[in-house]
């Protein structure tokens, strides 16, 4: 009797997981469909919307690029050069050295000829780590370097927000390389709708193994190893198409820390980034949604698909595992912290669509992926499901996911087509397969570990990213 009940439960669970996989992959396809509508608009607009008009607009808002750096001596100089090479009429670059123990500051001092200056901090956003010194560059106008005690990325960025003197704040990772016109693109929503747009995010792509010259990515090709290659496809599907789709719906919940633009007055008003949350970027966006909806203030958060921030992705499973555990835990914390918004009509599409989606199809996905696969295996073992069911399950979980990934490649090909070589195309298609066989299951386990860490409130695992670096062709700093 009990055995029958258990087996019935097993079969029911198997069918449930099968339906879940169909639903999750269909939801990806829907997001891709929404992204296509946005891309069409973007492409259509491109010929008549010259960036030169934005560049020449005297009313374009000033932008401060904030880079929080902790032990980034390997890539900091090139990253700062890239930021100084950005084409934008009014830009300041603020690097916050968060108590690095390596030669990050020494390298900056050496290359950019830094000189200590007296600077009174407004102190509008409290910070954990004391600011020790502020420097300005003698050779690069607009570059400010802040040396502070270690307090974490969010704390460093808060100091940057406090010290910056621009209307908009652009947060980038210290290892990010922005396309030269990236700011002109990502500022566009603020120009188009200055009253409502409070934040915008740009797309993040993978820089591994590419050549960077004078702070610019000069040869775009697929990475040489499979782990980053798979992440190229993953970033394409999730970051480019997924977030474009969410932006279209009006429920964009994540603006990547590697490239996001925010109104400074709002950051000051809301007290900056939360230093106690792992996913501080997502938490900030959620807090903006939460507060502005609560106060019934009209606003928009927009994702822009064209500007690119190039970032280095993990190329070892150890680093990748750490990253995915952190992301999963961060998402859990954010959803928990803002649980009052969940299914609450007051919070519009974010509360009614975005949050439930992220809970069911992002946070809980690894749970169902791991236990679903186990349940089907058990079902086969006990003979309550047959091989035909197992095949159907594999098609729903893996086959359908491959369709989604290759669809993402197709959309990239007809829209931005950044990877021009035929060899890159072959690698990308292969990566779309491998992503769903092995890689996805591994990341599901790591995400599950992150979720478990969040549930039991374990000590946070801070993200130390071991960098291989990209190929840098050195150039003299522009004097």
């Amino acid at each position, binding site marked *: 009797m009990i055995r029958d009940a258990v087996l019935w439960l097993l079969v029911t669970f198997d069918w449930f997981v099968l339906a879940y996989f169909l639903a999750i992959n269909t939801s990806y396809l829907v997001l891709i469909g929404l992204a296509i509508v946005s891309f069409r608009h973007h492409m*259509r*607009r491109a010929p*008549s919307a010259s960036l030169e008009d934005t560049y020449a607009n005297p009313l*374009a808002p000033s932008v401060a690029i904030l880079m929080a750096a902790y032990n980034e001596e390997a890539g900091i100089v090139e990253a700062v050069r890239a930021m100084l090479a950005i084409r934008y009429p009014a830009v300041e670059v603020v690097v916050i050295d968060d108590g690095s123990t390596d030669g990050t500051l020494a390298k900056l001092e050496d290359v950019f000829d830094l000189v200590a200056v007296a600077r009174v901090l407004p102190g509008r956003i409290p910070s954990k780590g004391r600011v020790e010194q502020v420097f300005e560059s003698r050779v690069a106008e607009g570059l400010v370097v802040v040396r502070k005690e270690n307090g974490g990325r969010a704390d460093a960025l808060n100091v940057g927000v406090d010290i910056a003197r621009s209307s908009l704040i652009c947060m980038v990772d210290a290892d990010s390389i922005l396309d030269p016109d990236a700011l002109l693109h990502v500022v566009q929503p603020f120009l188009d709708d200055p009253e409502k747009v409070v934040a915008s995010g740009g797309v993040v792509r993978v820089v591994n193994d590419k050549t960077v010259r004078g702070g610019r990515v000069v040869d775009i090709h697929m990475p040489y190893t499979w782990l980053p290659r798979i992440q190229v496809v993953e970033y394409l599907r999730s970051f480019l198409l997924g977030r474009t789709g969410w932006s279209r719906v009006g429920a964009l919940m994540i603006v990547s820390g590697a490239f996001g633009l925010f109104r400074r007055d709002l950051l000051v008003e809301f007290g900056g980034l939360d230093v106690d949350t792992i996913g501080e970027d997502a938490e900030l966006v959620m807090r903006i949604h939460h507060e502005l909806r609560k106060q019934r203030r009209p606003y928009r958060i927009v994702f822009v698909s064209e500007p690119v921030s190039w970032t280095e992705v993990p190329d070892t499973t150890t680093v990748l595992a750490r990253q995915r555990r952190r992301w999963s835990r961060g998402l859990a914390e954010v959803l928990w912290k803002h649980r009052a918004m969940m299914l609450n009509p007051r919070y519009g599409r974010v509360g009614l669509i975005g949050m439930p989606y992220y809970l069911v199809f992002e946070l809980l996905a690894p749970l169902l992926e791991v236990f679903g696969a186990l349940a089907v295996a058990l079902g086969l073992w006990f003979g309550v499901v047959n091989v035909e069911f197992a095949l*159907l399950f594999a098609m729903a979980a893996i086959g359908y996911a491959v369709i989604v990934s290759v669809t993402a490649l197709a959309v990239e090909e*007809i829209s931005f087509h950044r990877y021009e070589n035929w060899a890159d195309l072959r690698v990308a298609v292969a990566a779309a397969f491998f992503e769903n066989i092995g890689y996805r299951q591994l990341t599901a386990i790591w995400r599950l570990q992150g979720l478990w860490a969040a549930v039991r409130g374990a000590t946070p695992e801070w993200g130390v990213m071991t960098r291989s670096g990209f190929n840098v062709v050195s150039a003299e700093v522009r004097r």
Partner: protein
Amino acid sequence: MSFVVPAFVVLYVVASVVLALVMFVAVARWVRLARRRRTERVVAPLRPLLIRLAAADEVDQEAFGALASLPEKQWRVIEPRVFRLLDKVRGLAATAIEGLLVSRGAVTTSVIGARSPSPVKRANAIVRLAALRQREQAGLIEQMLRDADEDVRRAAAIALGKIGRAESVRPLLESVPARRSVSPLVVGDALVRIGHPAVADLIAALSWGCPWQRQLAAEALGRIGTTVAEEALAAAAAGDESENVRAAAARALRKAGTWYAAGPLLDIAKSDPCIRVRCEAILALSEHSGAPVVEPLEIMLGDLEYDIASVAALALTRMGLPGREVLERAAAGNDHWAASHAMEALMAADLDEQLGRRALRRAPA
């Protein structure tokens, strides 16, 4: 467990869909690359002619003639490049390229395009009419400010700025609060581009009903930098109900003000309820007023509001020797807050002088 659709059928369907998608990607790439090669084949031999036309001191008749007599099929391929080139050149070269485009019927096709049902074609046509500086078509473009498509409206506003006709000021400003509105920042840019011919209408707009219109008028007057508007701007800075308008008007007085504005600006700097307006007034004061306002700025250096103290210090660095003396005195004084701001400003000014930097430092946003 049995299924209506056997699993292997699903497997075949999935495999077929994946294969079809991969084929689609490959074909799309092949078509794109083939199209690019075909275009390059047409453009490559014509590129030297374009360079000759753009680089010559006088009109290169041979290049002009060769391009003007190109077969229609080749011209269609090269025309977008000619327009892009027109954006990059000035003077005689621009006149020659404009002449070439007009001789190839670009105006007529653009006017037709502006009436197309496709918003893409309408927007592109407007961009082309603006590139050709077609003042005669300004009326048509002004109508496009009310177009159903927002990209067309935006293109029309930018085009009117480039054409630079004074009569466009009113329709541009009216497009801001309209149901089918144009971004105020795009309109502001267009108004600045129109420049001095726009001044009279902009002064009148300082008393219009919509705050955005008044703010844009003030911003544009400031960027144009005409002292004719000084009195109206001073009145707006002192008395407008919107703090955005007051701030814009005070900012405008940096360039559009004279000593006349010092009195009203000082009052605003001391007593406006909005910090941002006070900051703008302080910075404007530093541009025109000289020694008489040094003393009030010295007092503001000790203001507990960070922005006021910081901006007062910045303003003092711009006021020459009297300002520097005040800062040095404050830096050595007992008021720690004022001394910190004074030291910051002095160090920054010294650094700028050392490096020969002439651009003004940024005040807190």
